[in-house]
């Protein structure tokens, strides 16, 4: 390893190779984001392959020259872009087929050209170098050209960032804003062909597409904002190129493939371990969700059994879909969280907190059933299964909206009462007031209570004065009305705090 590092920092060819790789990694990383987001991976591949005849003809005309190759490559990719667009517009051939036809033709002409040149001349022009790169043979002239192209690409992306953002996200809107989507498209193609030429020496025409799309796809798994995606992708491109180069020197293989493989390994690692979009975190989320559903099912079934006075492990096992050992683990968890109390002898009882939690599930279930009948028009027979699923998924926020849009129903379509929202059932009952105190009837009342109040000519927001009370009833004064309200009713009338 030390030996390699020494080579990298002392040998001129190695320093040139390192710098060239870094620049190419950065450039491909940044531009690659747009290639991926604009679904241009195939176009990128096509442009990369199609520069070959341009390079060969440049070689025939002016010999081995970085600038000559550059000019030839740009002209070839221009012809390719025009050829593809022309076919797409004038002949009824599918878009990707048109791309395939043009680039394979161009590539083949290039390959034939190379064999022709090497047969006739005796000069050295190795097809392999074009296909897979030859970064160890980078000249100073190559290096300047690569750096110049990189600067040009970066500046273009910075200056035209908004144009690129708009046309990539929503071309129609970009067009209505006066941005020419077609011009931006050709501009991206131009940047792409420049970048391909810059990468020719480093990774070659076949693998440049790996440097364009792999770091970008990796970055897209790591961030949700284009700016950061660009930065991350640039960084990943850079380290893929550098690590690939080091590996290739160590193993004495071709650098281009080593870079592509490095980029792919990083991609796979990120695909596994990415914080939110990675496979592992997704499966953790899924198993957490399953666990939550199972715990909630236990709570709900316990509540039902509890109401019948039949809450025990045996009855619970009959009502759930998973095994006994799992149930036992979950019960331990619920016990630790003080939702279900488990005695030494295995007897179960629900804590007040557990009842409240379970009631929230019942609330979700019954509200959703009510919603399906009232708003979607399903019948009572059709709704239970759906509600079984959604009771675990609906957030409190959504439930509140459902509740409000239904006008705070008190019973579900089957006639069962819908429990109050968490906290709400802790009503402040009228029965708690003392003589001489004033009480304001709260807005939030069960429907039955509102009708009872109505019968007594009372309604929410009325201010009552408590004038007397005894063991059976509480006497209130409201305007001229004096009323005796039985304690059994007073306990259910909610007053404001």
């Amino acid at each position, binding site marked *: 390893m030390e030996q390699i590092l020494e080579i990298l920092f002392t040998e001129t060819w190695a320093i040139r190779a390192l710098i060239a790789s870094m620049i190419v990694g950065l450039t491909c990383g940044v531009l690659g984001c747009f290639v991926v987001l604009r679904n241009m991976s195939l176009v990128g591949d096509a442009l990369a392959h199609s520069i070959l005849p341009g390079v060969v003809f440049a070689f025939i005309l002016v010999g081995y020259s970085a600038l000559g190759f550059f000019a030839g490559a740009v002209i070839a990719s221009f012809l390719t872009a025009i050829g593809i667009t022309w076919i797409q517009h004038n002949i009824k051939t599918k878009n990707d087929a048109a791309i395939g036809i043009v680039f394979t033709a161009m590539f083949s002409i290039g390959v034939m050209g190379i064999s022709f040149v090497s047969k006739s001349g005796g000069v050295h022009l190795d097809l392999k170098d074009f296909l897979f790169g030859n970064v160890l043979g980078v000249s100073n002239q190559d290096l300047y050209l690569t750096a110049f192209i990189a600067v040009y690409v970066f500046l273009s992306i910075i200056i035209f960032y908004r144009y690129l953002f*708009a046309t990539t*996200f929503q071309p129609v809107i970009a067009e*209505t804003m006066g941005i020419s989507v077609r011009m931006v498209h050709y501009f991206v193609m131009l940047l792409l062909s420049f970048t391909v030429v810059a990468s020719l020496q480093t990774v070659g025409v076949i693998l440049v597409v790996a440097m364009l799309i792999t770091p970008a796809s990796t970055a897209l798994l790591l961030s949700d904002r284009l700016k950061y995606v660009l930065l991350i992708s640039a960084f990943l491109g850079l380290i893929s190129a550098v690590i690939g180069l080091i590996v290739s020197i160590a193993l004495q293989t071709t650098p281009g493939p080593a870079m592509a493989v490095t980029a792919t390994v990083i991609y796979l690692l990120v695909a596994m371990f990415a914080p939110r979009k990675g496979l592992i975190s997704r499966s953790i989320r899924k198993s957490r969700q399953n666990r939550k559903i199972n715990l909630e099912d236990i709570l709900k079934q316990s509540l039902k059994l509890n109401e019948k006075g039949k809450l025990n492990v045996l009855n619970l096992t009959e009502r759930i879909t998973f095994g006994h050992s799992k149930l036992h683990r979950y019960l331990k968890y619920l016990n630790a969280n003080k939702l279900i109390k488990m005695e030494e002898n295995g007897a179960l009882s629900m804590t007040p907190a557990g009842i409240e939690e379970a009631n929230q599930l019942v609330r979700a279930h019954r509200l959703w059933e009510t919603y399906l009948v009232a708003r979607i028009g399903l019948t009572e027979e059709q709704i239970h299964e759906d509600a079984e699923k959604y009771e675990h998924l609906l957030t409190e926020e959504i439930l509140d909206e459902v509740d409000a849009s239904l006008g705070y129903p008190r019973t579900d379509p089957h006639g069962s009462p819908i429990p109050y929202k968490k906290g709400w059932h802790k009503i402040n009952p009228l029965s708690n007031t003392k003589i001489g105190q004033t009480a304001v009837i709260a807005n939030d009342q069960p429907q039955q209570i509102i009708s009872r109040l109505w019968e007594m000519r009372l309604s929410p927001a009325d201010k009552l004065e408590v004038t007397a009370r005894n063991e059976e009833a509480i006497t209130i004064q409201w305007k001229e009305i004096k009323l005796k309200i039985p304690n059994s009713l007073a306990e259910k009338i909610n007053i404001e705090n």
Partner: protein
Amino acid sequence: MDPVIKVEGLSVSYDRKRVLTNVYLDLHAGNTYGVIGPNGAGKSTLFKAILGLLEINTGKIRVEGSTIDQKKKKLAYIPQRNEVDWSFPAIVMDIVLMGRYPHKNLFQKLNSLDYEIANDAMEELGILNLKNRQISELSGGQQQRVFIARALCQQAEIFLFDEPFVGVDMTTEDRIIKVLQRLAEEGKTLLVVHHDLSTVEAYFDHCILLNQRLIAYGPTSEVFHKDNISKAYGPQLPILHKTGMIE
């Protein structure tokens, strides 16, 4: 008063198939036009023509007396949600700020005023608390509101809404209605492609009934009646029975 949009003898065809034939319209500021017609009536085509997105075979369109190309800044388009890749790496703020792009030349950066305008727009649509949310995490109604907030940032004079009420929740529908009302009060010209015939009278003071040619246009109370609706919908009449528009 001169019309804000003047459509004169507009005809459009795709691949030799006529989509719009000989449409004349004078649209005035402060009016909200419901654009009504069956599928394939050319509603979207009319929008695209006004937005300058397609080549017009015959006829011409004038916006404030000039060609569309000179008046692009005056037009804001709110497309349907399904045309977009919502997994795109952007947050709500990024999308709303797009509305400021037409006001910037190549080398101008977005400044604090632009951010303020974007914030106000998000506030008006009730999505300010979502401004750092990735766009794929939004509900359909919220996505629709993001597009409308962006259009507000464009500070345009003419707003073209393509079916803004499709697949949105009631909160969103209410917000959109309020925005439409405010814009109309400020003298903007609004065009809204709309499918739900039962709400046309409540939402739009003017109507444009289309079915490849212009059936009628004008104040809703004058043109939105049985005869015109049957003319516009023709063979699709059974749908109307369902909506209760026709006995």
